[in-house]
């Protein structure tokens, strides 16, 4: 099970946080800080798996992260997930974001936080991997956005 998905930048500012297990608000912020602390110390040519944090889930969890330009994408998983699979999943997620936002950059994530959440909802649901086919994900997100837009057109005409 995926316990949390965190995206933060090189200075530790959170860009997207999604927890699939209940934590109180201050615990959530503490987890973000601790994760940033662990991940930022890593060199660029070491492996993408980290153990040793203590806040989430006790002992059965590891952090799988990828560093893209200014952002860290961190998935916090337990032992029931395949580590290399999650690594690929991060790649799929980022490529999906790229397709949805057209050459996605950090500012896109900042200003369209809700949209990123909706895209993530198509990939991971309830801590489990839902869909890994990028085209399928993008198609569904498009349809949903179109539906939302059509409502607003209707309302603004009123």
């Amino acid at each position, binding site marked *: 099970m995926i316990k949390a998905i965190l995206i933060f930048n090189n200075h530790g500012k959170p860009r*997207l946080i999604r927890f699939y297990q209940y934590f109180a608000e201050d615990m959530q912020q503490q987890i973000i800080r601790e994760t940033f602390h662990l991940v930022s110390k890593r060199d660029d040519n070491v*492996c993408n798996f980290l153990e040793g944090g203590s806040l989430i889930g006790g002992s059965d969890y590891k952090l799988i992260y990828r560093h893209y330009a200014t952002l860290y994408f961190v998935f916090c998983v337990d032992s029931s997930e395949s580590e290399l699979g999650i690594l*690929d999943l991060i790649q799929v997620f980022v490529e999906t974001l790229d397709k949805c936002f057209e050459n996605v950059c950090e500012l896109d994530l*900042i200003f369209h*936080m*809700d949209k990123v959440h909706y895209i993530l909802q198509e990939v991971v*649901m309830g801590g*489990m991997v839902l869909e890994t*086919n990028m085209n399928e994900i993008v198609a569904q997100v498009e349809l949903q956005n179109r539906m939302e837009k059509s409502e607003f057109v209707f309302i603004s005409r009123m």
Partner: protein
Amino acid sequence: MSPSVRLQEMIRVIRSARTQCEERGVIQRECAAIRAQFRQADNVGRSHNLAKLLYVHMLGYPAHFGQMECVRLIASPRYSEKRVGYLGAMMLLDEKQDASLLITNSIKNDLSHSNQYVQSLALCTLACMGSAEMCRDLAPEIDRLLRTSNSYIKKKAALCAVHIVRKVPELGELFTTAAHSLLSEKNHGVLHGAVVLITELCEQNPESLAQFRKVVPELVHIMKGLVMSGYSPEHNVAGISDPFLQVRILRLLRILGRNNDTASDAMNDLLAQVATNTDSSKTAGSAVLYETVLTIMDIKSESGLRVLAVNILGRFLLNNDRNIRYISMMSLQKIVQTDHNAVQRHRGTIVDCLKDPDASVKRRALELSLALVSAVNIRSMMKELLLFLSSCPPELRAQAASGIFSAAERYAPSQRWHIDTILHVLTTAGADVRDETVPNLIQLITTANELHSYTVHKLYRALVADISQSLVQVACWCVGEYGDLLLRAECDDTEPVQVTEDDVLDALETVLQSHMSSPATRGFALTATMKLSTRITHNVDRIRSIVSIYGSCIDLELQQRAVEYNALFKKYDHMRAAVLERMPVIDKTSPGHSKGEMTAGPVQERDQTQKQPAVETVSQESTNQASNLLDLLSSSDDAPQSTPAQPHSLDACPTSSSSPEGDLLDLLGGLDLMPAPSLTVYEKNGVTLRLQCDRQMDTGVSITLSASNSTDGDITQFNLQAAVPKCVQLQMKAPSGDVLPARAAGQLTQAILLKNPNKVGLRMRVRVSYCSQGTNYQDTVQIDSFPSVAWQ
């Protein structure tokens, strides 16, 4: 106008704040505005407000006032508002909040909505934060959705079902048939969801596991299709066709094939095929291969296949990509118990990984190396491990140190090697070892008779050079105990140190005065100094002066020791040599004792006369009994006397009150659980005192005195004192309290240990004193006959 423009405005404003304080101010203003708008009845921009609130929540500011708004938005008919409402529910609500119950109805309605996206929102929310009650309510709905024809909904319903099964395992049976039928789907998303659901059902319930074994041929068929199919653009990741689904199916096959021959047979061909055909140059292929290897090792596969699997792992281990190396070490860890020899072949590579600059790889290599230590390779492995310890990252030190200790204990080829290894670890990583190492090491040293002079020489050198507390404690103890060997300066195994008595005393005094010594260490040093008074010839006066200085020390423990040692010098000089002689070999305690289970409370010993020092160990208890009891003893006709105290036997216990472990004299050893008859020994004024023999040992017995009160008022200041004939030793543990509640509402117990090495008849005199309804009472009871088990 696009829906979140106001959100973007707010974000822009927040980002332009230059200081944290400014940002807080902006956010507070925004939150106040949002709260005001929430209170208005109808509002076009409701969804924007909630979106803004969620952004603020992500930054870490409180957002609980948005919970009711989420509920309202979810109930709205408009999709845009529902969307934000559900997102808010997933971020802000959880089953502990009351508001979460209110959305159950909305979710129920939305699950049967005509629009599939509304349905999917409801499913998503249920899967994220559905409580057990919600799951129970909505499970039939989910089951219905599992049978629709819409694959988008089906895959979401499958994962929702997994969440329900996790929360309420009994509902698993509801989904079993649906799960079966989902396996014949073509859509990969649905297949994936179905496999996850079946995996969860099998993990929860062994009966489902037996049922789903029939599905193995179907799964094999699907896998074959994936592996052998050509290039299919929609599921392709780096040349592998839907590796995510392959990995899931392999995992499920592993669960189904475990401990089951028929299922394992059905999979053998497939696993061989996957193992040979998958291209592992990219991560996707490696992921599939890795799962295959784990599955092969876990099921009852044929030996050829196992060899293939271990070879694949070996190849992984030599791969340049660090991720692959990490993964292979993880999988080797899983199989090291069962296929130990196969993993031993790769020991060289694993030990090399200890030197890898990557901390994660180091951690894996350390665990694996510790698992690979065996009697054959202990010397070479220990060399590598000690080398690693000196350069390892700080977070791994404690683990490495404890791993080295347990490995050394199990496979030490000689005692000298064992002591050397422990000393090496203490000098390199002394700050990170656990407290138990000190008594364990001391016990080890006492058993190694021939090595005493060697050990004390090495430790003396370490004492002068080092400051880590564990090492200093052990060194002080050794110098105190074997100081004469040190001064004689003869040693076979190592270069003897030419020290004078002054040097040794200097070293101990430095420890006593150093700011870096913990109170426990100072205690060790003081006792060691005292012990040296019998082992050296010239500087006894110096020792006396050192000891008397500490008689006014602020630390209670040190002060008590110093006062007692002073008394030993002044009044009981004739006994000093006997008291401070060499310690007997200490018995190794069972693991239960050394882990901190307190089987013995504070041990207090009774002495002949009032002035004689009573040495106390681990936890201090207020002892007002000493003087009163001694009056009792001196006044009786039998002149019962207890044997002289043996303080030296208690020296070994580290006096740090933090760890009650290390009760090296296992006084209550020997578990003879005989039925314990009880005897009423005193009954007066409503107070009943009963005696019960708990345990019988070769040389003694442990009894419990329990008191109860049948009057209407509480009895306070209840106190028991006991005396025994000479040649019998008495030790009283701490009473459970000193108040007897009225009307036998509770009991007081006190345990007493009698040591009877000469096997004389056991007799005991007990004085009971208490205060009942304002009057003080005191009575004496003679117990001549113990319940029969007391007689040998």
